[in-house]
């Protein structure tokens, strides 16, 4: 069983969205289920601070040994912080998807978009658990 914390929201493309202290900023990464499916992650390519994205644009790519996956933006907004530690240690995503494995922090343009994302129960159902 994958770890699906109740405190987060989820996209159908297996990103998690974590609220931050600043209510206009969210943290985005991939779920524990997604890292399990991908296997050992060896490289992540992420956007730059200041880049802007529409909902479902590609934010970057995640490479495992045998698979590669796009990271889709679950919201519209501007990147305010990027987890640069992943350059040297992409395995952090496998170890701690919701902690050290976070990828970007985004200032959201439309908080209403968060409402359309799944809650933990919905995501569990989505991944058949």
């Amino acid at each position: 069983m994958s770890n699906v914390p109740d405190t987060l929201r989820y996209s159908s493309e297996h990103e998690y969205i974590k609220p931050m202290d600043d209510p206009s900023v969210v943290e985005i990464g991939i779920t524990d289920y997604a890292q399990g499916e991908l296997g050992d992650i060896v490289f992540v390519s992420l956007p730059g601070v200041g880049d802007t994205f529409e909902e479902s644009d590609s934010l970057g790519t995640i490479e495992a040994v045998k698979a590669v996956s796009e990271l889709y933006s679950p919201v519209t907004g501007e990147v305010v912080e990027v987890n640069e530690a992943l350059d040297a240690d992409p395995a952090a995503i496998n170890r701690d998807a919701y902690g050290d494995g976070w990828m970007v922090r985004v200032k959201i343009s439309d908080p209403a978009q968060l409402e359309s994302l799944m809650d933990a129960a919905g995501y569990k159902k989505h991944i058949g658990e």
Partner: protein
Amino acid sequence: MITETDTAADTFASRHNGPRPSDIADMLQTLGYESLDGLMDDVVPGAIRTDTPIDLPAARSEDDVLEDLRAMAAKNRVFRDYIGMGYADTITPPVILRNIMENPGWYTAYTPYQAEIAQGRLEALLNFQTVVSDLTGLDTANASLLDEGTAAAEAMHMTAAVSRKKGDRCFLVDAQCHPQTIAIIETRARPQGIRIEIGDPDTFAFGDDTIGALLQYPASDGQIRDYRAVCDAAHAADALVTVATDLLSLTMLAPPGEWGADIAVGNSQRFGVPLGFGGPHAAFFATQERYKRNLPGRIIGVSRDAQGNPAMRMALQTREQHIRRDKATSNICTAQVLLAVMAGMYAVYHGPEGLRRIARRIHDLSRTLAHALRQHGHTVVHDDFFDTLAVELPAAAEVMAAAVERGINLRAISDRSIGISLDERTTVTDLADILAAFGVDATPDQLAGIAAQAPQAIPPSLERTSDFLSHPVFHRYRSETEMLRYLKRLENKDLSLTAAMIPLGSCTMKLNATTEMIPVTWPTFAAPHPFVPRDQVEGYMELFRRLEDGLAAVTGFDAISLQPNAGSQGEFAGLLTIRSYHQARGDTGRTTCLIPMSAHGTNPASAVMAGMKVVVVKSDEHGNIDIDDLRAKAEAHRDSLGALMVTYPSTHGVFEAGIRDICDIVHEHGGQVYMDGANLNAQVGLCDPADIGADVCHLNLHKTFCIPHGGGGPGMGPIGVKAHLAPHLPDHPVVPLGMADSCGTVSAAPWGSASILPISYAYLAMMGPDGLTEATKVAILNANYVAHRLRDVFPLLYSGATGLVAHECILDVRPFKASAGVDVEDVAKRIIDYSFHPPTVSFPVPGTMMVEPTESESREELDRFCDALIAIRQEIAEIESGEADREDNLLKNAPHTLAAVTADDWTHPYSRERAAFPMPEARESKVWPTVGRLDGAYGDRNLVCVCLPMEAYAEA
């Protein structure tokens, strides 16, 4: 008394096919059939069967066909070729010729997907990468590409992929690149919308839209120029510089990586690989470390195994088309492993001092020739050169003719200019002969005097000062005994067809018969330069005609192009031919390419390269194309529909009954049908692609037509087309092929890798129409026999309406993930312990294995393989029942090395004997994996693609 029936019984087909007649009868009985034809009736839908036999001459004996080929080869007149243009004669060290090129232990292996039984050729490829990296001065090299022209084109694609510039983009090309390279670049750039500007590098204008430039060093006409300022200008404009170069010259010249090049490409042929009238050879590609994720082709990297020891495997595979599909920058799949291994071993054999000596000698001969020509009033155009001179004179034709009279080919650069490129074989006597063609008389003694006076021809600022090939591997094997043992030691680490079946689905690892292989290295086939006058190679011309006729007869097509050098190149060439056809009709908007979800990743990557937009068609639950979805998509894109790419039988190994309807729907909506010939081995003699409805099909000669896989190349991917597409087939700028409205040039040589074509010709001639058809039937029988024996143990994923498969079958191992914690990787690695090569893993369906036994495997071998899989199922059952540990078990720890099972320390809950000798037969012919299971993630996170210092290999 000798009767005809005695000799008739020993047909080649009976040697090529594995099962004996009595086995076939038994196997059919197991499947519930009385005859092979009865089985075929249920496997191959009646609607697509042909009832006309293949229009080919009757089968001939092996001896007969060898005689026939000998006579053909004798019609090739071998001249001394000083044409250059990226090809130079070379001496293949005999120890390499016999023990690699002519050795099935090396040439029958496949791409090193299973690293634990491929450390030998992985090490050989790492040597090659080290040679390329050291000589070019760039840190990251790949394990080879197809030829110099396509390598340069790959560099352009990579430049475009890393460039931040968008919109209308321009790529600059040195007018002194080899003409075939320029033609390929133009062909590749057109569908990408990249503008090519050809000019003198000194006048290159790097604008806002310039993404990069391609230079040739030394240039095609021999000149050595200092390009440092060009590199500075390029970098200032955020453009990349690619340098096409010659490895041997780089033993004396400052390497491109030291003066600003971002990418270096070229042909490694002159490192001991015969010219072969164009190939096969290994091209190289090197770049800076920061671009490693954009590098095309295979990269061999050093990682570690489960025990923590250094071990090699293919690295960064997520760059490749089979994963990236339409997002890939390149459609390249395979490398030219056999030839790259040879080139790397040439460097091992000679070492840096030997290579320097060879280069120095060629250079000194060139200086002598230049000086002698000048002394006699000829104009040698450039003062700075390595091995190639351009000579200006009033009438080139006279000298060209005088040279031909002396058995010498020179390059006619223009009516008033001749090129002369010297090589490793050139002697002082040859120099005298070349000079005689220019009307200059010089004795060897006089030439020695001239040599002493000849001025320097390498500018001091471009002399190489850095060391290269300092790794011990390039210094240890100087005696032939040591070299022989090194080659044998590496060979023995690998599993090839000489040891066991390689049931890789979609790869068709059938017999590469000795008779088929013998002509390849005859000098009459191996020696000609690709651009010699056609009247000197009448034997080759006859071979091409007969092979084209044979391939046309097998496929039903009207015309064949032998140019594409691999399946991926065939796909690209086929799609370009289709595009060219649409455009010639004014249908310029037909750029949508429908591709089924189940297609191999190369298909979408090729479509994108050909400038097409990929629209995916769904598959139904049986793995077949969803015809309703196809119809809907064809309808939705009816104004832009260019082509459908379809594999037949499907990638799931099933003859789809609806294939005719599928082709009709595409044609009705204005599209053309491209058939991927990967699975042609199930069609030959039973149905033909042209009749089914395909307009183009590529033929993997390295699958169906017996060219060996060479450990991961060479291959050949000719295309067959219907008459309406024939005028659009590939042409060649140096050797015009007479196409009326060609789609361009796809390979550096006009007929691709010509010297391996005798293999496919011999196969067709020795099998004849009946033998070929019989082989197809036996291939289908073997696959169904395996499927039948295993279906109760491993669920069969797809089968046709009758419960039968075509020539391969997919075994589902996904359920064991939940029941035993075992995944497909564990099963595959455990198969190695049973001394087999695992089947194809996770293609076309993740988590499954695809088995293609081919017709060449005997029933005994099939039974051994099935017994192994049944035994592994039993091992899984022991985990399921709790009898075996869920983590520490035979599968999770597989493969087991000799070191692991003989170690003093053995902590596993199962016996050493079960680990290493799970079946009694294994004792007789055990193939040991030389490393434990590879840690792919470690190597991908820490890429190392050149030889490690020796300490790393020291015993821990």
